[in-house]
């Protein structure tokens, strides 16, 4: 029954989506308001149908309905409820179903919020989203059909991939990633809609899609950080980023979207870069599809390549169609994409944005070349090569350092040509901070020039961005007599977009410092200990107390109890484990982490004696790691401040109405 509901919802949804696309497109072309309305109604209907299909699947999973082949593939009676629900994205078919559902939701929302806008921009934007939706729904009824029948119905299933049921973050990272990926469809659809309707010249598509882009970008940011966290907590190697092809696949659209968020300001202010911005939006969308191709086709080995098969090549076709369609539309709009404006100065913020875009593009290109090169080399030379962490670090760390530097310069420079006095006022503080940090890091024994430079540039960017808050708040305090807290609050409220951006910059500084510190000052030791024995890692004594075993419904656990002492005093008791799942030969490492703002102590159980007399432990001491996660949250907070729809400008009347003297006594201003 569940299977029938799910399957028929998918088939009907595909038909409805095709109908909606036709109605919307021809309704717009022939100016038939009735067709258009019907098309929008069909868009809501396809969302309802996709919702029905998705809920049917969740219901099937929870009810252990093994007559559905997806459930038989990833379900098991012993799996805890949480992991049963999230196995919706535990394999290919469910992932595509979830993707299709999110896409249907966003399509319906785009229609709902913009349907009354005049002109053909919204119909063609909707049509683009429906077109992408048809692609995914086609996958769902054909190569990735999740509701196939199983006969005879098995009594139980194998459960999800062990890696996907070992940590709660698996319930967070994938949906965030899909929201980010699918969200990038919206600015792409607006760009295509703008070109198809001939309304691309005035850049209204950028205003209409701005919040969508920022929202998708925030989700993608959160997804990448959550993915790093998952990798850190589950893979047992004490790292968080390995330049795995799939990590790269999620990072590339993030880079191009970041470039777009910046370059779009040049278009809004000066009418420049119209074509370039379209390119970035199309590239971002194409890269999300490319990422899916890379992970789903199995052409590259990766921790995420859970399935292999022909389905990947459908994505290749989708990329080709995307690029072709955007090329045709760009060519048809060439005269509307001519830029007439000029930058306001050489030493100006506009110039910094251009270099920011150059670096982010070069970054994307480097990651793309590095990710695809093994395929190319094998095809040409017939020998496999690896392009891994040492390569990416060598090539991209200089780019990261330069970006950190620009992140400080950009906010400090005005749009107009900066004069010497402005440069001195804005940059002296950051330069001094950078100099002091450089000397201090070298003095503290940082021997890698890049690490020292990263710390220095991080200090530079930090002081420059904080300086913007301080300067703005001071001006308000002086002119309006506001208290420091009020001034800061009003400053943010009056310029959400700008200061939200600076908050995001501060988050990036936190991530950059944490990554540099945790890799530079990492201390690590591995030893086999008998019960009661200790090893010493950088001042910490690590004592093995116990090796134990435990049976859980869905797995067997071998664990250790370890006490960490510092100067004879107990600091923490940790239990690094190995989880054995029946479907996997290899145990899933389950490290134990003791986290403090100053850093982590990371313990992984590497091996154990069958008789429980000894165990091999790896101890890694990594400073500042939690600041990577915190920094990610700060970045998302910045994005949310920029998105917030309410009170974009504090009305002047309200600000004036506040009696200056009624403000609370100034809290220590500096």
């Amino acid at each position, binding site marked *: 029954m569940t299977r029938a509901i799910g399957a028929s919802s998918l088939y009907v949804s595909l038909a409805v989506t095709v109908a909606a696309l036709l109605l919307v497109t021809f309704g717009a072309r022939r100016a038939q308001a009735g067709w258009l309305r019907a098309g929008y109604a069909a868009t809501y209907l396809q969302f309802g149908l996709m919702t029905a299909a998705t809920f049917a699947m969740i219901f099937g999973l929870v009810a252990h309905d093994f007559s559905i082949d997806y459930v038989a593939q990833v379900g098991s009676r012993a799996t805890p409820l949480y992991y049963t629900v999230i196995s919706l994205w535990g394999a290919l078919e469910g992932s595509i179903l979830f993707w299709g559902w999110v896409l249907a939701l966003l399509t319906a929302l785009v229609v709902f919020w913009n349907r009354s806008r005049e002109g053909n921009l919204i119909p063609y934007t909707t049509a683009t989203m429906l077109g992408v939706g048809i692609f995914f729904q086609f996958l769902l009824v054909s190569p990735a059909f999740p509701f196939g029948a199983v006969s005879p119905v098995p009594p139980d299933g194998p459960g999800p991939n062990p890696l996907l049921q070992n940590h709660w973050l698996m319930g967070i990272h994938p949906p965030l990633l899909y929201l980010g990926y699918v969200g990038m469809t919206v600015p792409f659809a607006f760009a295509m809609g703008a070109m198809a309707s001939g309304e691309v010249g005035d850049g209204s598509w950028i205003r209409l899609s701005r919040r969508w882009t920022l929202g998708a970008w925030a989700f993608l940011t959160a997804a990448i950080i959550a993915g790093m966290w998952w990798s850190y907590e589950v893979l047992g190697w004490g790292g968080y980023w390995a330049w795995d092809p799939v990590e790269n696949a999620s990072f590339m659209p993030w880079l191009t979207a970041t470039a777009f968020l910046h370059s779009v300001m040049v278009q809004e202010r000066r009418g420049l870069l119209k074509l370039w911005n379209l390119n970035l939006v199309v590239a971002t969308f194409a890269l999300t599809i490319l990422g899916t191709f890379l992970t789903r086709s199995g052409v590259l080995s990766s921790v995420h390549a859970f399935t292999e098969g022909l389905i990947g090549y459908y994505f290749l076709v989708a990329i080709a169609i995307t690029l072709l369609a955007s090329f045709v539309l760009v060519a048809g709009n060439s005269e509307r994409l001519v830029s007439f404006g000029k930058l306001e100065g050489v030493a100006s913020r506009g110039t910094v944005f*251009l270099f920011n875009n150059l670096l982010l593009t*070069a970054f994307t290109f480097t990651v793309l070349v590095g990710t695809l090169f093994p395929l190319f*080399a094998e095809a040409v030379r017939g020998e496999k090569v690896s392009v891994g962490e040492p390569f990416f670090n060598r*090539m991209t760390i200089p780019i990261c350092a330069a970006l950190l530097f620009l992140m400080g310069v950009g906010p400090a420079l005005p749009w107009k040509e900066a004069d010497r006095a402005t440069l001195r006022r804005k940059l002296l503080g950051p330069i001094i901070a950078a100099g002091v940090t450089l000397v201090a890091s070298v003095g*503290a024994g940082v021997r890698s020039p890049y690490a020292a430079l990263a710390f220095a540039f991080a200090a530079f960017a930090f002081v420059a961005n904080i300086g913007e808050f301080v300067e703005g708040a001071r001006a308000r305090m002086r002119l309006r007599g506001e208290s420091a807290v009020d001034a800061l609050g009003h400053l943010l409220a009056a310029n959400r977009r700008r200061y939200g951006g600076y908050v995001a910059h501060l988050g990036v500084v936190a991530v950059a410092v944490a990554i540099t510190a945790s890799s*530079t000052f990492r201390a690590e030791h591995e030893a086999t200990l008998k019960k009661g024995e200790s090893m010493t890692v950088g001042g910490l004594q690590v004592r093995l107390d116990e090796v134990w075993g435990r049976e859980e419904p869905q797995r067997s656990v071998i664990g250790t109890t370890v006490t960490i002492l510092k100067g004879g005093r107990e600091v923490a008791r940790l239990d690094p484990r190995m989880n054995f799942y029946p479907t996997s030969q290899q145990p899933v490492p389950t490290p134990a982490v003791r986290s403090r703002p100053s850093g982590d102590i990371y313990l992984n159980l590497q091996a154990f004696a069958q008789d429980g007399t000894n165990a091999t432990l790896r101890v890694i*001491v990594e400073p500042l790691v939690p600041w990577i996660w915190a920094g990610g949250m700060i970045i998302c907070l910045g994005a949310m401040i920029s998105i917030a729809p309410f009170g974009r400008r504090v009305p002047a009347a309200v600000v004036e109405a506040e009696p200056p003297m009624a403000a609370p006594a100034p809290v220590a201003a500096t």
Partner: protein
Amino acid sequence: MVSSVGLVFSLAAPGLLGGDLAAQDAAAPRVAAGDSALERRTREVASGLRCPVCQGLSIADSPSELALEMKGLVREQLAAGKTPDQIRAYFIGKYGEWVLLEPKAEGLNLLVYVLPLTLVVGGALFVIRYVRANSEKRNS
């Protein structure tokens, strides 16, 4: 606290590039310092070698059994006085060039280094020209 811990550790390991292990051992006291020096050298070599059973992790990072064995081999060979290049050549002989996480900068592999650099340099020239041509006010 923790960063000073890391600091002590990194200070304890002198620069070892190309150094001969026997000499290092003689110079350093045999206890902790000598061990962490060897450990550091092992990590340096191991982090460039790919774990054959993992997904793109180096044998320095991977917790898998095979990686642990390979890392042990690197440690032994370093202790026996082999140079990092000799050790890498040994693993290439066994697993092919694939085992190197960073492709050797020669032949076709040069592309993977040259392409991004070309974009950076070409792009920088383009942006500079663009800014010059599209600014209201020009600096001399």
